[in-house]
């Protein structure tokens, strides 16, 4: 807590751009809650939200705080970016050169990523910067999708330079890049790079709410005006892209090039950011592995308002397990449902109530959950409750709160449930173990038997439930309050404005269980 005592010493009003992707202010979820809290918690600063979105038609579902001056929607799909013509004709020779560099790093990223520190040798960063300059006065989409650009990708892929990377004795067969693949990749990259076609923001500080495409906005401001850049990582964006593409039906070559892009973008954004704020110590491992410097890192935990999440009074009649969150593959509800089937074997009257919305696009996953419930004959004991007015209502409805995710940052669900004095069963992903500590049960992800065992134990042992619930609330009050979280960010902003940091992490360290 020593670090926090230094805080709140300066409150110079700033104009801050908070950059989000697929979250605030259009969707619910942990990152959105955090964004809203952050803006509300710093009334002295003016915020502008830049939301990287799908098609630009999204509508805000949050009531804007008074200091939120505007929301800029930055769609990647749906509408073509305004074309800025350079007077017709093909792109100039210098564009061909930067595109070649860009593709070369994309095809063989390790040649660049293995250099530490990346510094001026970051050819990916240099080519991104040059593409930003190009996009400010010409049509980047047109250039990226020209036949010359596609041919360049094909040539490079099929050149000896590419092939040798796959000539290890075990690597067989070589991945094939067809013209269709090259078109798919170029088209997707054109969409992903659309933030570069926007004018750079003129603000005092850019804060990216997550890694990935948000960071393009921060980089553009840095290149144009030297704007300080803070980067938060709730989950690990790159890790989630890797998981998401694991079962993607695209060809190997397409997946490889896109994931290389995300990996390079992540490493590059770590290089450009003044301060990187992982939301758990677990996240640091991935950040350090991908090129972040320890001196940039400030661990920030999410926090909740203890007055908003009061200790639950009493319990429901039937033994009830509660899940709270979006209906999403990352929450691995299939494992939870399978676990519940085992729980019912030991506690026949048990109920499973799943609170949370089905985000647009996740209908197929939701249906797969319903199918599994039907297949296991659990229709009478498992219920999807939909969105709830206040999360505390969901936690109060159950005896045990379960988080079955396969990937997390530092989930609000967990600390909110803990603040309500509920016993939790959580999978050991992201910063979950750090958050729960000894005040809840942590089990391996995807292990439905372990989840079931923990749930049965808690459902059958009221004393254990109460002991863990009391310890959980105590832990939240000590370490994960909203006030602490906001103050830590206030300090991070001041540091970023002050200039490059060259000291080790100042934030309080909470190791919890080792990962």
């Amino acid at each position, binding site marked *: 807590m020593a670090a926090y005592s230094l805080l709140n010493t300066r409150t110079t009003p700033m104009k801050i751009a908070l950059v989000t992707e*697929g979250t605030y202010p259009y969707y619910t979820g942990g990152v959105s809650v955090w964004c809203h809290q952050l803006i509300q918690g710093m009334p002295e600063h003016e915020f502008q939200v830049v939301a990287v979105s799908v098609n630009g038609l999204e509508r805000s579902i949050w009531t804007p705080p008074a200091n939120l001056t505007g929301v800029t929607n930055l769609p990647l799909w749906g509408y073509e970016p305004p074309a800025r013509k350079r007077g017709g004709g093909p792109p100039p020779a210098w564009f061909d050169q930067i595109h070649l560099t860009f593709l070369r790093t994309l095809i063989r990223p390790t040649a660049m990523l293995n250099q530490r520190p990346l510094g001026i040798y970051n050819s990916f960063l240099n080519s991104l910067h040059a593409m930003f300059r190009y996009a400010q006065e010409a049509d980047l989409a047109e250039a990226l999708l020209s036949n010359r650009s596609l041919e360049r990708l094909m040539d490079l892929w099929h050149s000896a330079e590419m092939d040798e990377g796959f000539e290890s004795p075990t690597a067989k067969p070589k991945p094939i890049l067809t*013209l269709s693949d090259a078109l798919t990749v170029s088209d997707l990259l054109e969409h992903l790079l659309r933030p570069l076609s926007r004018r750079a923001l003129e603000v005092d500080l850019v804060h990216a709410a997550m890694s990935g495409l948000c960071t393009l906005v921060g980089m553009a401001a840095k290149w144009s005006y030297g704007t300080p850049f803070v980067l938060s990582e709730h989950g690990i964006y790159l890790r989630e892209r890797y998981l998401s593409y694991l079962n993607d039906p695209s060809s190997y070559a397409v997946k490889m090039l896109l994931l290389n892009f995300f990996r390079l973008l992540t490493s590059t954004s770590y290089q450009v950011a003044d301060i990187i704020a992982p939301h758990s110590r677990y996240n640091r491992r991935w950040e350090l592995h991908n090129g972040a410097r320890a001196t940039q890192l400030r661990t920030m935990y999410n926090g909740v308002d203890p007055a908003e999440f009061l200790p639950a009074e009493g319990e429901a009649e039937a033994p009830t397990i509660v899940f709270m969150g979006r209906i999403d593959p990352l929450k691995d509800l299939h494992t939870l449902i399978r676990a519940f089937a085992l729980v019912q074997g030991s506690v026949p009257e048990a109920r499973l109530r799943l609170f949370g919305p089905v985000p647009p696009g996740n209908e197929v996953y939701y249906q797969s959950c319903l199918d599994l419930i039907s297949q296991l004959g659990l229709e009478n004991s498992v219920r999807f409750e939909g969105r709830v007015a206040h999360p505390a209502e969901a936690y109060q409805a159950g005896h045990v709160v379960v988080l079955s995710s396969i990937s997390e940052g530092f989930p609000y669900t967990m600390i909110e449930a803990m603040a309500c004095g509920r016993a939790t069963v959580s999978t050991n992903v992201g910063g979950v173990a750090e958050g729960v500590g000894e005040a809840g049960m942590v089990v391996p992800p995807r292990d439905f038997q372990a989840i079931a065992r923990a749930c049965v134990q808690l459902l059958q042992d009221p004393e254990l439930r109460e002991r863990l619930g009391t310890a959980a609330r105590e832990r939240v009050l000590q370490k994960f309050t909203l006030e602490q979280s906001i103050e830590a960010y206030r300090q991070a902003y001041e540091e970023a404005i002050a200039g490059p940091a060259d000291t080790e992490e100042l934030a309080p360290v909470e190791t919890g269980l080792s990962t």
Partner: protein
Amino acid sequence: MSQRSEYHPQPDPPVASYAGSERRSQTALSQLARQFDYACTSAVDSLQIAAALESGGITDRIAHDEYGLPDVFALAEELYRRVPRRLKTQAGERRSSRRWQTLRELSHGPLFALPGLAYPAVAAAIGGQSLLVGLVFSTAVGWAWGLGVSWLGYRLIGRGFHEEAARLLLRLSLIGVLAAELGALLLSYLLGLPTHTVLLATGQMAYQMAASVLIMYRLEAWLLLSLLPSIAANGWYLILGSPAWGQSIALWGSTATLIILQLGAFIALWKTPRAKSFFATLSAGDFVGVLPVLGYGSLSATLVLLGNARYMFSSLDLSLSILPLVLSMGVLEWQIRRFRERSTLFLRETRWISEFVPKVWRALLQSLGVCLLAVSLISCVTVFGLYQLGMLSQEGTTMFAAHLLLAGAFFINFILLAQSRFGWMLGSFAGAVLLYLGAGFFLSPALSYLAATSLLMVAVTIAIGPNLGRVAHYR
């Protein structure tokens, strides 16, 4: 992290790709490789395996204690090095569904032509001039409006907004019918035509809108079913030589068709689940984007109607000259799809753009050839029949030739439409309309029409040339 993530059902249980000793190996690392087989054999790099390991519960502590490696990253690196990649091949398409699709597409031509059976009875009932004005007006409005509505509808469907597309179709179709009715009222008042003209124009517009909805929802069978009363009544009326007493039966048949059709379209739209929450799915940009589509629809309708309306009640060869084009519209649709499929296949098979370009040209010529052949065959049969009956004039032959060229131009225009080459499309049709009007001072109407469609064909061929090999158009 609160972004939504994509859901892909898990693949079938993996078949171990290891051979020999590796397959039998019982070391901890080999067992782990088998446990994470799918990740190990399909990962693009070691970090992807690390992500899969962590999501499967492997921590740094386990990597150290059980596998003797410093952390999960090192463990993933080791697995990536040991396990070979197993690359999947793309699944082929189902042929049976494509056959049905072809049949559906081919049916569109006859479905567009069949309502024409009702015109003689209607003409007898309300008079030739009223029929002409009502038909020309409603066809022109319906053509442009229908094209615009379909364009917006497909745009929404393409974005996954099926419910919103249904709602939009319903609303815009109703607005279109209402607008046609008001327009016809005004026209009838100005030209001093009977109110039947308004009824005809409204009915024709309602038919076009409902047919568009049913075709969009792939309900051609319902469309055919609804046409049966009209076909039966009007066919019987024509076979009997259009007796005065059969007129009302023919008209009732057409009315029944119209009612069943509206019902079908309404059911199709009603059955689409309603969106739970209303939010904007179209922006101002979409409505601006639809303007050139409306312009294209209006100009193409103008060209066709200018050339043909004058012949509606003249000699049979001239009034039938458009029939091959109408009957072949389904062939055009089918060949557009085939062209797209072939282009996509070439993209998958080719590694070099220099190989792709000649292939795509061949595909275009092949599809264009099929379209022209279809129109030519129907034209030849019709011309031969007319010749045998002694009803073929030189002007009639010229009109058949003009419609052949028009079919080719429409086919290429479908491709230009997909490439959003609106400037060329609008310019070439406007040029053709102007040429037709200008040439009318020196040439016969049929020759003027042939000159206009020739110009159109040349213009769209020039337009397609430089861009056909542009790979980005085949996204």
